């Protein structure tokens, strides 16, 4: 357990010293969200309707961008190798890295999204549901994304390849996450969507570190 916290602290410290990486992904999120009205037109009613989908897709893409940060530097400088050989189970260390990744790329989205939602004229309660859905969804994105990042470690065309592998797997999160907000806006109860999202998160929290660890060992052979 100590080791897990140590890894989280370590990665957070490194992220703090390389703020540009974290901030770039966040600005990407903001820019992408802003592109949609520019592409579609300023019709307020239409924008309000597409807002949940747009914000969620932007969140997916922003998470994708930040995935290469997860293992690539550790792989390049040899610290990943050392983690594989440490007395602490690799699965635990991987979980720690994913937690740190979420704290630096997912949690900011949860906090930022409601602010952007205001641009789309979503009301306060809808923004609350949006934040809640993202709170459940972004860890899910980090967990699934970690598998993709581990599989493509050191591989040619890694960045785009990760997107190809991971985006299809992100579809359920997108559907339930955006669906929750849309349901709420239509006057329905988002409970169903959010519960399914929570269930997926629980499933991924159990399986994803395991798959990621296997993929990392394959990558380090």
């Amino acid at each position: 357990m100590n080791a897990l916290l140590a890894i989280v602290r370590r990665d957070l410290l490194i992220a703090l010293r390389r703020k540009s990486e974290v901030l770039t992904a966040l600005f990407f999120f903001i820019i992408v969200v802003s592109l949609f009205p520019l592409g579609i037109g300023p019709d307020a009613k239409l924008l309000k309707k597409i807002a949940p989908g747009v914000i969620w897709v932007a969140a997916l893409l922003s998470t994708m961008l930040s995935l290469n940060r997860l293992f690539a530097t550790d792989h390049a400088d040899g610290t990943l190798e050392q983690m594989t050989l440490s007395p602490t189970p690799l699965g635990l260390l991987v979980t720690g890295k994913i937690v740190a990744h979420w704290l630096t790329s997912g949690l900011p989205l949860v906090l930022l999204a409601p602010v952007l939602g205001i641009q789309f004229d979503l009301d306060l309660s809808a923004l609350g549901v949006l934040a809640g859905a993202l709170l459940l969804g972004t860890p899910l994105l980090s967990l699934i994304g970690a598998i993709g990042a581990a599989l493509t470690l050191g591989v040619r065309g890694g960045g785009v390849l990760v997107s190809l592998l991971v985006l299809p797997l992100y579809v359920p999160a997108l559907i339930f996450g955006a669906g929750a907000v849309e349901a709420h806006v239509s006057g329905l109860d988002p409970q169903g969507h959010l519960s399914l999202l929570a269930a997926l998160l629980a499933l991924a929290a159990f399986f994803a570190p395991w798959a990621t660890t296997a993929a990392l060992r394959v990558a380090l052979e």
Partner: protein
Amino acid sequence: MHGFMLSVSGLSCVRGERRLFSDLSFELGAGEWLHVQGENGAGKTTLLRALVGLSAPAEGEIRWRGQPIRDLAEDYGRDMLYLGHYGAVKEELTPLENLRFSAELDGRTLDDAEAIAVLHRFGLKGREELPVRFLSAGQKRRVLLSRLATRQSPLWILDEPFTALDVKAVDMLSGMIGAHLAGGGMAILTSHQTMPLPGGRAIKL
């Protein structure tokens, strides 16, 4: 003294389609060390990586304390310290932070005073609080080597440990390895240098 034993039998490794070496066997007991020699590309690093369990050999078995290392997983990690070609330090962190985090991953907490003492021993006085990327290659190497002092592992597997070190540091490291062996530890090294340590055997690939 404690009966720690590394035993390797019938080991062979391939890289791509080339068989690097086959039917390699040896045993290592307390106080013994192995010098792996060979030209560049002969397979020294591959052998070491197989010995630590990073890659599976094509054939053969590696046992630590009688059990295959594959089955030991983290327990083997506790008893073994591998320092390879990579710098294996985080450039954004200071030597102090690097050492303390490595210790925590190894399962022990190191307080500031202890860590600073170790770093001084490795000639990093005055550099403890500087992010590693500002250090010279030799200093970076010494940050990595400082783990030898904090990790209590009987088996050291070191790939070219003397790279980028000046004469003083080489002497210090040889002294450390000697003390480690005298205390019942074991070591496997690759190095182009001759090492004035007793109880050694050589393997040429």
